[in-house]
Every structure is written in C-alpha cells, then in structure tokens.
C-alpha cells in the first residue's frame, strides 16, 4: 500500500521509541567506550578498556551477578509456589473468597521502600519484634548482619512484596481455564491431588511460563529492597548487579565503567532469559 501520509502517523510512535529505548541503549554503548568519571567528565574514546577491566579485573561484579541469580531464582520459585497455592485456594469456592482475594493483593499495593523500612525495623536484632518473639525459644538470628542470613532476609521481603503479583497472574489464569476437563477428570477417576497434577497444572503451563518470566525480569532488577534493607551489606554479601552498578555509576561517578557493566548485564540477561524460557517451555509443555 502506498499511502503518502503514513510517516506522519508513524512519527509519534517512532519518536517515543527512539527517545526512550533506542537512544539510551546507543548512548550507553557509546558511554561504555569512554572513560567518563568525576575527574574527567566527557565522552572521550578509550576503546574496550572498560570491558577488559570488567572481564579481567573485577570479581566483585561477577560475584554480585551470581548472588543476583541465586536471589532472583529463589524468590521467583518461592513466589510461584506460594502464589499458586494461594490462587488455587481462592479459585475454589471457599468462604470469604472475595475477602481473601483482596487481602492477598495488599502487599503489592504498598510502597516497596516504605515497606522495606518497616521490615528493617521488624528484623532489627535487638529492638525488632521478630527477635523479640524468637527470644521465647532462646534464639536471636542476626537477620541483617550475618552474611548468609541477610540473603534470606532479602528473599523474605521480596517474596512478601511480590508474591501478590504472581498470585494475580495465576488466579487470572485459573479463572480462564475451561471447566469441562475438570468435570471429565473427576468422572475418569482422578482424585483431587491427581486432578491437580494431571489437569490443572498442565493446563496452567503456558500461563505459568509467562508469569515466571515476567517475575524473573522484575526480580533481577532488585535494587530498592537491598538498598534500604542492608545497603548491600554486611560487606558485599547482599550486593546485586544493579546495586553494584549503582554504586560505581552514581556514587563513584565512574560513568563509563558503569555503562559497560550495564550493557554487559543487559546482554547476559537477554541470553539467559531466552534460554530459561526455552527450557521452561520444554519442561512444562512437553512438546
């Protein structure tokens, strides 16, 4: 079709796309090839020096990356299991169904930073209510200052905050399932447990894959929780990629180097999420 005004109509969309997506990416690539820092602000050209430094001389970035992988995969698995259980519960006809459906969404509606401050107070080692209650059993875990436990504290807060999102996606999925296969399965001799394994779960597979991928993308951007809860500490034991990039870029103003980390991170995420999506599809859809 030859329509002479088509560019006129395409322009607004293209303009937004170029402005918010294409330009920043190109700029980051260019920035990563420069030595922009607080002594030397400006787009000079230093070649691949930043990347060479990143790949040969910065174990902290890679540590933070593997830590991030652990944190995001664990939180998403937990969110999926808990979210599915809750969604399955209020999908059935139970009493106060509507009340529970709203209740389970409350954490998502709160502001993450404020809630994390509240959680930090909760987990405070000497003043927090959690350890106050645990003192009955004579234990006082160092929620925020032990390098191992602190990771799980971050996971708990993340799971609490974002399980509702998973719950919402999965409940929508459950409600959209056809009713007939469940009728058939009961008659065909499937007990409730087997009905879940052989009918509900396979029917939910496409939706599950979507929900898990969406949450994985979100979870790997984890930043605010870590920032407020532990500031990456103790030491660097809860530092994630985005938090490390933030430190390098916006605290130490090594803009060029931070840009090279961002770009590397983006490429790794695209590749790994594609692989994860493929693997999940193979595992869950069995085709």
């Amino acid at each position: 079709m030859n329509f002479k005004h088509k560019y006129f109509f395409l322009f607004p969309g293209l303009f937004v796309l170029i402005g918010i997506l294409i330009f920043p990416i190109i700029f980051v690539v260019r920035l990563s090839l420069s030595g922009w820092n607080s002594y030397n602000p400006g787009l000079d050209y230093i070649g691949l020096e930043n990347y060479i430094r990143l790949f040969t001389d910065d174990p902290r970035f890679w540590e933070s990356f593997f830590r991030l992988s652990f944190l995001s995969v664990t939180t998403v698995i937990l969110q999926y299991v808990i979210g599915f259980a809750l969604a399955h519960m209020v999908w059935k006809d139970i009493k106060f169904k509507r009340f529970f459906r709203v209740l389970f969404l409350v954490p998502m509606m709160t502001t993450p930073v404020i809630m994390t401050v509240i959680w930090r107070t909760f987990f405070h080692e000497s003043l927090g209510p959690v350890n106050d209650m645990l003192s009955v059993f004579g234990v006082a875990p160092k929620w925020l200052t032990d390098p191992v436990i602190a990771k799980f504290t971050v996971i708990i807060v993340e799971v609490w905050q974002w399980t509702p999102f998973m719950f919402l996606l999965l409940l929508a999925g459950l409600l959209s399932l056809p009713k007939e296969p469940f009728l058939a399965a009961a008659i065909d001799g499937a007990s409730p447990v087997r009905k879940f394994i052989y009918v509900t779960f396979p029917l939910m597979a496409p939706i599950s894959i979507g929900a898990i991928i969406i949450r994985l993308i979100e979870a790997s951007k984890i930043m605010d929780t870590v920032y407020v809860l532990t500031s990456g500490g103790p030491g660097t034991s809860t530092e994630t990629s985005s938090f490390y990039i933030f430190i390098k870029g916006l605290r130490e103003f090594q803009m060029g180097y931070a840009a090279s980390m961002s770009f590397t991170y983006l490429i790794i995420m695209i590749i790994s999420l594609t692989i994860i999506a493929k693997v999940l599809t193979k595992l869950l859809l069995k085709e």
Partner: protein
Amino acid sequence: MNLIANNLTYKPSDQYHLNEVSFNFKEGNLYTILGRTLSGKTTLLKTIAGLLTPDSGAIEFDGKDFLKVPVWQRNVAMVYQQFINYPHLNVFENIAFPLRQRKIDSEEINNKVMDSLKSVGLVGYENRKIQELSGGQQQRVSLARSLVKNAKILLLDEPLVNLDYKLREQLREEFKSLFSKGLADETILIYSTTDPRETMELNGEVIVLDEGKVLQVGPAKEIFENPNSLKVAEISNDPPMNIIEADISNEQIRFEGIEIKAPSHLSKLTKGGLNIGLRSSDIELSENGHEFEVELAEISGSETLLHLKRGKIKIIISIEEVLNFKIHDKIKIDFKIDRAYAFGADGKLESSPFGGLNG
C-alpha cells in the same frame, strides 16, 4: 449389581430439577431417559455420577450408599452433550487418562486404548491434537474414553445433540451396534435424549421425565403405543402429537363442525371435554376429506410438515413426500381415526388404539 435411586429430590431454586425420582436400574440393561430440555435429565445423570448432591433421597449401588462415595471412586463413565476432552493431551492420552489413574502397566493401557480406538473408528488418529478433530471425532474420543475404563455405569447425556444431522445418524447407528455387542453383561447404560426417534431406535427401557418428575416408565414400544398422559404423548412424539378437543356422543366424534364415526375403542367413551390425540403421520391428504388452511409448510429431509388450521384447531401433519404448498392454500385431509388416542380433561389416557385401558 443394581443401581437404585430412591426419592431423589433436587431443588436449587424455586423449580424442581428432580422431584422424588425413584428408579431401579438393573444391570445389563439399556435405559433411555426421554424428556424435553430442562426436564432434569442432566441433573439425574450428574447425581448418579456424583457431580451433584441431591437435597434428599438416596442412591444405592451394590448394596452401598452411593452418595457417600466420592466421584472419583464411583467407577462411572460419562459422555456429555458438549464434547469434553482434555485440550492439553493428544487423542491417545485422552483415552488413556482414566487408565492412568489406576495402576495399570503401559502395555495393557496401550492394548485397551487401541481396542477402544478401533471400536469408535478412530485408528490412526492417536497422535492428533484434540483441537484438530471435527465435532463428531471429538465426541468419539470422549465415547472411547468412557468405554475404555469398563465402568459398571455408563452415562450418556444427549451425546448426539451437538452434532450435525448426518453425523448424528451415523453415530446413532454405531451406538446401537456398540451397545448390542460391545458392552459387558453387568453394565448399566443410561442414555438421555430429547429425541423420541432416538428413543425408539435404541429400544431400551424408557423413563419419561418432565419438570423433574418421572411420568412414565416402560419399554420403548409401550411408551409409543400407550402414552399414559397428554404430556407423555407430547414428549414422546416428534412432531408432537396433535391434540384436538372434541366431544363423543352417539358414536360420533365432533369438533369444529367435523363429524367422524368413532372407532370401536373410542365409541364407549361418554365423558365430555375429551382430547383426541393423533400423530402427525396418522393424518393424510385426501380428495374428499375435511378442508383445512395451510399456515406453514416446511420441508425436512424427504418429508413435508404442514401446519394446518381450521377455526380454533391447529394441527401438524407429516407427508412422506416433498410437496410445495403456499400459505393460505386450502387442502383436504382425512383422519386415520382408528389410530386416535383419547385423553381425559385431566390429561390421563382414556383409550388407546393399542389396547391401553378402555380399548
């Protein structure tokens, strides 16, 4: 092992879905539940299957209280009017599903599924997806799935209603041959339908259901020949039996200025306000008959259905020919009055040409 339903009542709103339904289903028999839509057929089948719990009443099977047995342990099979299958499984796995719920080794599953596929004529379709099949094939898959588990109770809820005319005819034939040879002696087969013709062809024990109530029970032939009430006569005939209000006196039947000599089985009736019932096929075109006006003529297959009117009387006649009539045409018809039924003002059968009651 007999299945005994005892005073089943189910009334979810102000209308009865089941109203004190009692019946003794004997093993090895075919039962047809005949009733119009919303008459409670599906409710009855679902109650037997365990998908619904009645408000009151009991179901007993093999001497046990069946209502206490959860659905998945009841060993019933059901085919629904919608084609219900598992969309995420292929044809083979769909049929194997009930077997996979038990501990059966895969070779036996394979044999049983292939046998079942053979009996419904779907060999070669094992690996197809359900969505790739036509409606008729989908219904065959659910039929195969219900046959494969060798259930003691097999429920078919209007299995042909959502199929097109040709497939329906074809599947009905296959059902008949399947039922006659393929079923074990101890199976109870319950088939629900709205179609009187299907009922007659299946030729089993018929239960006529209306508004949740059992109106009549008997062999198909008996229901056809001696419907015990006006309602049964309406339900068990398609097109519905023509009902004409008439008086009988001096061995003459009178209505709308027509006088016909009453046949022997009607002549003794003296009550006023009788309803004469005549099947649409028992009225024929005749040169020297009574004049009626054509209201509508519809051709269905090789038949012509004529909706006729004379005064207050409206009747439908069927002619085994394709004929063209215009609306408001005047035609002459004759009644095969010796095949007429008589129902009292209360709707009860008074006399039938096949020797019911006074005949």
